[in-house]
């Protein structure tokens, strides 16, 4: 009886956390992999891992970085497993191209394309800062970088995007 109650409570806790953050998980995975199908696979694997290791989340207030860390590892594992090559932006698969063609909005498409073409090193901190609301310290923790390196990457990312938008 006690065990089933504990299991139900555990499941409820998990559902609540995932309910709040699954959008962030998907978007982070999508911008890491630059592929919608892979993002969905990565999120599925990440959810399983999160479920199995829920006890390691000591404070639900830290659920977002915890989940995103799992997504990051799952994405790395996915690419390691599949031995995928770097995305060739001139020959996108349908799933990759779908990421860039969400809405018929030229200005948005140009920006999305520019972000898509950013190096991983620049794109990831940008996603974490602008979309996930992470501080530069938190980004440093997530990516294993010093704050100065994070700031430099963000500065360069914006400079590149600005330049791209001017020429687009």
């Amino acid at each position, binding site marked *: 009886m006690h*065990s089933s109650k*504990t*299991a139900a409570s*555990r*499941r409820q806790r*998990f559902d609540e956390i*995932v*309910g709040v953050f*699954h*959008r962030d998980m*998907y*978007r982070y995975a*999508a*911008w890491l992999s630059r592929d919608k199908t892979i993002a*969905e696979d990565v999120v*599925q694997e990440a*959810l*399983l*891992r999160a*479920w*199995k*290791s*829920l*006890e*390691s989340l*000591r404070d639900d207030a830290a659920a977002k970085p915890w989940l995103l860390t799992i997504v990051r*590892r799952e994405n*790395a*594992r996915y690419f390691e*497993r599949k031995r995928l090559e770097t995305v060739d932006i001139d020959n996108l698969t349908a799933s990759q191209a779908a*990421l860039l063609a*969400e809405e018929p909005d030229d*200005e*948005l498409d140009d*920006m*999305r394309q520019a*972000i898509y073409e950013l190096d991983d090193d620049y794109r990831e901190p*940008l*996603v974490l*800062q*602008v*979309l996930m609301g992470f501080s*530069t310290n938190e980004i440093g923790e997530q990516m*294993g970088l010093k704050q100065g390196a*994070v*700031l*430099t990457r*963000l*500065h360069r990312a*914006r*400079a590149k*995007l*600005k330049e791209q*938008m001017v020429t687009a």
Partner: protein
Amino acid sequence: MNCEQYREAISGDPSFDGGAGHLGECSSCQAYRLEMKALDERILRALSLNVPELNMPELPEIETSNVVSLSSRRRFSPPAWFAMAATVVVAALIGIRFVGVDNRTLAEEVLAHLDGEPHALVVTDVEISDERFRSVVPARLASMDRSAGLITYAQSCEINGRDVPHLVIQGERGPVTILLMPEEKIPSALPLDGDTVHGVILPVGSGSIAIIGVREERLDLIEERVLKSVTWST
């Protein structure tokens, strides 16, 4: 602060609120700040992809009787090796390499599993109960005496599609993961070598045993004790 410094700061973090003195005097940087804010709004819109409906995977049952509640977890003042132990999870994924070329899949499975169970690395001196131990290491699988060390964690886990006992014993320098895999036969020992962790998958009869700990841990001593303590049932 000059223009260059201010612009570098604001383009690294548009919420940067320093340099008020400079900003108050420099209309060019005021315009630059607005430009950065507008750029960020466009970036945010572009990043905000449509999200498909949540498709929850089938979640396996978790043995909740083994879950240690936070309040009952023993708090330690972190000894020197604790930080290293805490990095095992990351190191297992990004820092470790396979010294052998065979059985890469098994090694990957083992490391992926380690990565997915960070709660197995809880530092504690609370031994698991005999009942718990017997339920995770049933007689049909193996007999194991508890002489290998202080066993503080036991969970039946899936490796290569088979349920195997995952044990943690407290070593001299941190938690040591032991995976008993009676059906994973390997031809020779498979060393694992990482930045902060090391380990080995040892062939044992018709199966194998994985032993992984922090780099400073003398695993050879633990290996010897574990090998002496385990006998496969089949």
